[in-house]
């Protein structure tokens, strides 16, 4: 078993060595993140080359079955692939909410027709997806959403609005929670729909964040027609699908935010230290050490939860990871700003190092980590109730 895996490791290493372009082994630049989609842009042609090669191997979604564009790898094999990519600093070939959120849900709960229709396009980065969950009045209390979908023969008619739709203005399609029954208890009237954002009646308005970027939109729906076959699962049974997708989202948020953050933090502290030999002020050094210890623990927790995917609490454990990630990342952002001192106060301009300006935006953007994908408060409730079995109040 181990030898088979080692043989696989050798193959992977060899293939990566031959096929991963040199420029794809450098840290990702924001402008080069490969989001895919109808309007995908590749300022660096290597990004496209690398993506195509990985698609061919099925390694954009390595554990998916081959008929849906994956490579049918085991979890252990996928970890080997990940480790070997990390070793050469290979960039992730494709970023996508389709891969981490919608795809797993469709694999579990979609019809065969839906899987064939949507999964291969996700694997190949042909369609860029965004999430349609929150509404202005339905944040933590997501199930109180009120965007309406009425069945009119072969299609649904959608009216209402969604908020915090990540990069909706750059996306092609949306997976969207809608209310199909206003009389049922709130969790029982929700459905899960997929539709094209270019449909008539869709209006996407970017929201400017405190970090200065607009990574989210508010999206308005005015008599948008959606074919009835785009319903995933049963009508009014969308809440359980929605929760399942949130678990995937939480796992993913943890996974992606943790990488090499703590090394960078030490480096910043040294580089912007006020002492000539890069000595870090003791009070700050202690706090960075504490943070690094927690950050490392988070990485190990994520690995452990992957290994223990058969844990009966696996779904709720994504809440543990999500809260830990948000807390640790918040500390990390604060420490980064503090460590840079005067250099870390810049908003723009040549007087500030580019990396410092980047850290400022990351610090501010990071404040959303404990809000998006379920607030830390909601996740603490989930842990208390589902994992710890603590009771509800009696009335």
């Amino acid at each position, binding site marked *: 078993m181990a030898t088979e895996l080692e043989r696989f490791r050798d193959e992977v290493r060899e293939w990566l060595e031959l096929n991963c372009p040199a420029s794809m082994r450098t840290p990702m630049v924001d402008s080069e993140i490969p989001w895919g989609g109808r309007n995908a842009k590749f300022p660096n042609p290597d990004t496209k080359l690398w993506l195509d090669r990985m698609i061919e191997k099925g390694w954009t979604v390595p554990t998916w079955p081959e008929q849906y564009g994956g490579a049918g790898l085991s979890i252990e094999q996928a970890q080997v692939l990940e480790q070997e990519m990390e070793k050469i600093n290979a960039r992730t070939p494709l970023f996508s909410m389709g891969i981490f959120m919608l795809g797993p849900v469709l694999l579990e709960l979609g019809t065969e027709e839906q899987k064939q229709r949507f999964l291969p396009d996700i694997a190949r980065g042909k369609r860029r997806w965004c999430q349609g969950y*929150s509404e202005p009045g339905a944040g933590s209390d997501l199930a109180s959403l009120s965007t309406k979908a009425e069945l009119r023969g072969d299609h649904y008619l959608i009216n209402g609005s969604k*908020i915090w739709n990540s990069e909706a203005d750059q996306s092609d399609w949306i997976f969207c929670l809608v209310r199909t029954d206003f009389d049922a208890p709130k969790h029982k009237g929700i459905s899960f729909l997929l539709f094209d954002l270019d449909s008539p009646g869709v209006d996407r308005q970017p929201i400017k964040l*405190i970090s200065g970027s607009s990574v989210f939109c508010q999206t308005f729906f005015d008599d948008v027609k959606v074919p009835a076959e785009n319903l995933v699962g049963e009508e009014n049974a969308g809440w359980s699908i929605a929760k399942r997708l949130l678990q995937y989202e939480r796992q993913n948020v943890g996974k992606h935010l943790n990488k090499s953050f703590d090394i960078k933090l030490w480096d910043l502290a040294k580089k912007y230290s006020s002492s000539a030999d890069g000595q870090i002020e003791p*009070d*700050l050094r202690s706090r960075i050490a504490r943070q690094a210890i927690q950050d490392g623990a988070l990485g190990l927790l994520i690995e452990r939860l992957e290994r223990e995917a058969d844990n009966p609490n696996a779904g709720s454990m994504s809440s543990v990871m999500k809260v830990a990630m948000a807390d640790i990342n918040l500390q990390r952002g604060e420490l980064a700003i503090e460590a840079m001192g005067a250099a870390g*106060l810049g908003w723009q301009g040549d007087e500030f190092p580019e990396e410092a300006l980047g850290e400022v935006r990351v610090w501010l953007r990071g404040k959303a980590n404990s*809000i998006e994908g379920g607030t830390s408060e909601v996740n603490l409730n989930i842990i208390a109730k589902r994992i710890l079995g603590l009771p509800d109040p009696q009335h």
Partner: protein
Amino acid sequence: MNLDRESQQIFQDSARDWVLNSAPISHFRHQRDSQPYVSGRELWQEQVELGWPGIMVPEELGGSGLGMQELSLVIEQMGRSLTASPLLSTGLIAVSALSLCEQTDFSRSRLTSIASGELTVALATEEGNHHAPHCVSATARQHEGQWLLNGRKIRVADANSADAFLVSAKIEASDQLGVFLLPAEGVSVTPLAIFDSREHGNISFDAIAVPEQALLVARDSSTSLLDQILDRARIGLAVEMLGSANAAFEMTLDYLKIREQFGQLIGSFQALQHRAAKMYIELELARSVVDAALLAVDEGSTEIPLLASQAKALVGDTLNHITNETIQLHGGIGMTDEHDAGLFIKRARVTEYLYGSSAFHRDRYARLRGF
């Protein structure tokens, strides 16, 4: 001289009224959205007419002869509304510097100019990434009865519109640091785009000549004038920060009382109630230290350095905690640029850094206590 409690209340009310009418947060937001940086000069004349620059200037020099407690009533209100103003730099820091030094024609005339609103001053002491006021490369050299000043200072608050700078410089052929008042003419200012959107700049000065009396010499030489000035700057800034922390907290509290989720006002959730209560406790502790520090200044107590570090460290931690909770408890809306939560957190981190971070002041506090 200090006012009695009742007169202080009247003073505070008038400051609050002015801030609410002339300089609400929406005003700051408007400035930010329409200008490269927000200058405090825009509303300065109104503040001059209210007599604020001269609050701490002796009456015989055209001021009100009051104390830092009175000035802080205004500064705290400005902190609540994120009002950009040279009042802290000029009315508090520069007036302190010019009052703590041996009085000369030079110092007296500058105090008079400040009181009349003709002179604004920025404090320029930083040279490296972290607050280290005694590591100074700028130099002062005596030459034909004048001082020739050379050097550069970074991240100077209110630099872009200041009429003069208080700079620290190493006095050549001595191991002493001097504090000089340097006119803005001839000083080269590079404006900086800092995330609090205020006017800050890097400055450099190359062989600028100033009169002999421009070197301010401490009357009480038990501690250096630079430290005396900085301690007052720290306390004054802590007052502003406390105002901001209170305003952010109250904004959050208001939101907890109107936002509904799960069929409840979110302020009825016990976990959030306890977090709000803990913030309130922190604010009360912080206010107690700030009050004591202000009193110490007005009484000329020997405890000023200790209380300055205590106040700056404690208010810094409190403001950090509260501005983070302000975003978190507002949820998504708090992340948007159109909400004020972001304005508070951005200003907060700049003030936390200014005149020494909480970590700097924890260390200094321990050293001052002998540990």
